[in-house]
């Protein structure tokens, strides 16, 4: 009960233990719940349970329906996301209690029932920002299911359990988009991470997969520990776990304590988004894990890390850019440069995509280095980048999975001659590679444009310098993306084997979705969905 009320209502304004205990004895006031706002998560939860039950009853007979069943669940959960988007109101859930001078909960009587008066600062907010990202995670989840369908069925892995875990992880991400509270964020993070640890080691007879899972788990737990320590410092300073309350309390705090708290919190997410120097797990995990799961880690899991980072930085530290910005600047420059340089030398396409993902994380971090001056632009740039990045990177993985059905290898050289035996896959891969490199008219350019635009809008030396570094980095990056394009277009097929690739319908659907989204962002007005006014920082306040 204590934990429930902590999560649900946020803790009281005073950090002292006695008052905490006093509250445990106080009567519990049920917070009003907006079921519409909660519908996507609840549907996903219910559907996950349904899938589990079907599996328990049906066992082998229903196994082959698991993938489509899970996929349909994601699409159904999309419906309330769309209706919420259509309603266009910001919903603030789980607001804090108001205490009087004696420390008692202020109540009022509404309709014959005694309810607590709420302070308007929510721990869980459903706004445009959250909805765009919920949509992103549901669609990514759907594409991941499409990517996994044949891979899992043909590899004879435990597919039913796999899809249940995917649902759980996506649920964690959904919660993450709305969480504006340290504890909700932590719970969401673990809800999405723990299934991922399991799934990374899914090919359990393969040593590399075991290594992948173990490394990922150890690093992940380590990062969680550091982050929790940072969060505990924040709570100690602010006396509340709600981000907006933290923002009010830390304005005048000393640099030292705050720097430590901010640093530790951000380092924790640095692991999730594989920012240099916390990226070392990524290449090994990506290579060893089942490829669809790698796509999941590289796209959805990373995006969720960024979502948490944006929420924390913009909502909890809006006035402490003096502490956060320099740190983000260094992190962004190191991440994009080192990621790119190492990616240049990769010969395995999955490792190359892993390091390219590290470099891309650098671009996504960049706007956060100027969030103090241009918070809304920084937020918009990050979210736009995340959406476009998800489409193009998932697409690239889809092509890799499809081509590997023939080549049975992840070496870039093995993709030679694809132009001759699979022109469709070649065209799709070209779209994704050039989008990743940021060449118009593929969507990647718009994402980069928004990042550059935010950096230059800030009109600071640091911002301009970072923009120039990022511009030069795009040239490094183009080299290794073009290297893949070079093999699939210019090189002959290894051993002259020009037999066709059979691309199953699920993969074709995944490719179609990702190509359309990638192109649409580049040439149309679609990026409107990620244009926020007001921004997440404004919305957290009552």
């Amino acid at each position: 009960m204590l934990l429930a009320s902590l999560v649900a209502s946020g803790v009281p304004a005073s950090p002292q233990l006695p008052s905490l205990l006093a509250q445990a004895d106080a009567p519990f006031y049920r917070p009003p719940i907006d079921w519409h706002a909660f519908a996507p998560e609840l549907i996903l939860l219910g559907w996950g349970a349904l899938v589990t039950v079907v599996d328990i009853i049906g066992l082998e007979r229903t196994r082959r329906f698991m993938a489509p069943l899970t996929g349909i669940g994601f699409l159904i959960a999309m419906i309330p996301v769309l209706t919420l988007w259509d309603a266009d109101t910001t919903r603030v859930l789980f607001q804090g209690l108001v205490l009087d001078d004696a420390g008692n909960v202020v109540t009022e009587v509404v309709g014959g029932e005694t309810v607590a008066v709420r302070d308007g600062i929510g721990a869980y907010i459903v706004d445009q920002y959250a909805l765009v990202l919920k949509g992103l995670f549901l669609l990514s989840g759907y594409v991941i299911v499409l990517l996994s369908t044949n891979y899992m069925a043909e590899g004879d892995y435990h597919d039913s359990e796999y899809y249940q875990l995917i649902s759980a992880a996506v649920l964690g991400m959904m919660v993450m988009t709305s969480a504006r509270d340290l504890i909700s964020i932590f719970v969401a993070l673990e809800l999405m991470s723990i299934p991922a640890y399991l799934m990374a080691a899914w090919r359990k007879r393969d040593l590399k997969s075991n290594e992948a899972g173990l490394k990922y788990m150890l690093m992940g737990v380590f990062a969680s520990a550091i982050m929790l320590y940072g969060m505990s410092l924040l709570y100690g300073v602010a006396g509340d776990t709600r981000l907006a309350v933290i923002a009010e309390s830390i304005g005048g705090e000393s640099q030292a304590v705050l720097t430590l708290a901010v640093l530790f919190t951000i380092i924790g997410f640095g692991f999730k988004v594989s920012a240099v120097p916390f990226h070392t797990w990524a290449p090994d995990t990506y290579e060893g894990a089942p490829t669809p799961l790698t796509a999941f880690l590289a796209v959805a899991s990373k995006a969720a890390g960024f979502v948490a980072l944006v929420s924390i930085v913009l909502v909890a530290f809006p006035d402490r850019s003096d502490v956060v910005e320099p740190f983000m600047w260094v992190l962004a420059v190191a991440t994009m440069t080192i990621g790119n340089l190492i990616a240049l030398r990769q010969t395995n396409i999955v490792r190359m995509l892993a390091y390219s993902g590290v470099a891309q994380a650098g671009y996504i971090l960049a706007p956060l280095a100027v969030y103090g001056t241009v918070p809304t632009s920084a937020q918009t740039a990050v979210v736009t980048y995340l959406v476009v990045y998800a489409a193009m990177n998932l697409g690239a993985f889809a092509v890799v999975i499809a081509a590997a059905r023939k080549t049975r290898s992840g070496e870039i050289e093995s993709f030679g001659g694809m132009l001759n035996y699979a022109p469709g896959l070649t065209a799709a891969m070209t779209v994704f590679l050039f989008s990743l490199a940021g060449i118009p008219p593929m969507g990647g350019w718009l994402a980069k444009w928004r990042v550059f635009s935010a950096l230059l809008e800030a009109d600071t030396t640091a911002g301009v310098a970072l923009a120039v570094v990022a511009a030069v980095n795009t040239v490094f990056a183009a080299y290794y993306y073009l290297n893949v394009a070079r093999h699939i277009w210019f090189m002959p097929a290894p051993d002259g084997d020009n037999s066709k690739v059979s691309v199953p319908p699920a993969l074709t659907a995944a490719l179609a979705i990702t190509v359309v989204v990638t192109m649409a962002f580049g040439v149309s007005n679609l990026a409107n969905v990620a244009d926020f006014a007001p921004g997440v920082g404004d919305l957290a306040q009552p």
Partner: protein
Amino acid sequence: MSEFLLDWGITAMVFLPLVGALIMMVIPGSDEETHKTIALAATVATAVIGVLLLLDFDYDNTRTLQFAVDRSWIDVINARYFVALDGMSLPLVALTLLVVPLVIIYSWNHIPSPGNPKVFLILILVLHTGMLGTFVAQDLVLFFVFFEVVLLPMYFMIGVWGGEQRMYASIKFFLYTLFGSALMLVSFLALYWVTGSVTFSIPGLIEEVAANDIALSTQVLIFGGMFMGFGIKVPMFPFHTWLPDAHTQAPTQGSVILAAVLLKLGTYGFVRIALPILPEAAIEWAPWIGLLACIGIIYGALGCLAQTDMKRLIAFSSVAHMGYVMLGIATLTDFGINAAIFGMVAHGLITGMLFFIAGSVKDRYHTLEIKRLGGLLVQAPHMGWILGFTTMASLGLPGLAGFWGEFPAILAAYQPASGLDTTLFRVYMVVAAIGTVLAAAYLLWLLQRTAFGTPSEEFKDDPEIHDMVPTEYVAWIPLLILIVVLGFVPGLVFDVTNGPVTAVADALEAAGSAAAGTAIGE
């Protein structure tokens, strides 16, 4: 009809090639004739719409943006779909409309190894859309998108259908250009935020910069970013090294398009964007641009003299010729800029033609090594004479198109715009004049060693060596006619470009006198 042209003319012209490419994508590649027909039909249809636009164009108001379409596009970044034609873009659009169909006709029986005409022609069509779009775009974001769209097809054309060193050449081409355009992008954005503009439209930004008092140092830096983007594309010394590689390795069609149109995207960027928007910075940069242009002229010419490969020689001659164009631009006068635009068109026709010939020579001799060639006039007399004619045009013989690009550019350096150092530009003038002598030297040397003399032992009885085939006649004759016509009636281009160029030059002159005025005042 003219209603349609007003609203949809430019859009239809730009995107028709893309429609052709999309149709070709869904047709299986084995049916080669169909693909060639569709590609030709698409480019001819494009040209027809282009000609209708040209006929409907109001030549009394070359300064105004005509057939303008200004619609919202990507609202979130304030990018608009703003396309229009004026006297500055018209000659280059016309050049593109002419060259691409000729390239496709030439491709009828000249598909380079390893074949696959479907993909080859699709790439040319995408390229076509990119080039036309760049010339008509009046919004910086739209310009940037089209400017980059051409990278991709050219990369694949060089890489798949190129020569021995094609992979190196293609990636070099791509990375050089990308480096420039990445910095250009930063400049565009900096311009947008510094002026506090709510639009990326070029006319809008010209007003914004004029209305806001922006520090000269900032302007100079922003111009620097654009200079990298456009200068690499031109290419200017010292960023030219991608060009000889790309030209030499590219298939004939790629070389022709590269020389005829793609290089002009850079110089066009200078006259359309960099100079009008940032006139004060242009005055600061002009002496340096002039210097690099002169180095390019001499260096390109000397480079030509050192080449043993015919295609590589022509590529270096491009560096020299683009040097004249850049020198014309650097004078910042209406005379110089008019000459520069004429130079772009002339270079497009002449060097495009030279690359066609080089490609046909390569088809027959399977080599372009100058010392192994010789006696072209004996073995293929028509082609030999055309080579002779084109080299004459290229070295700037009066009466042919090359003259009107080169001579006025040199002349303009005698009296550059106010605010520029006259002595310095007169030195440039002398250097550039020496360059013409060198140009005569390397071009005549090329002609002498390939066309004159007797065929070498190696090729004397080679049955594959024959004179021109019909597709070559069809593809080349329009270019040859235009070289003569423009040589005799240069007014065809000058009359069109003069209006907008004068407008730009007046603004530059005003900025220059203002700067000179402050200098005296101090």
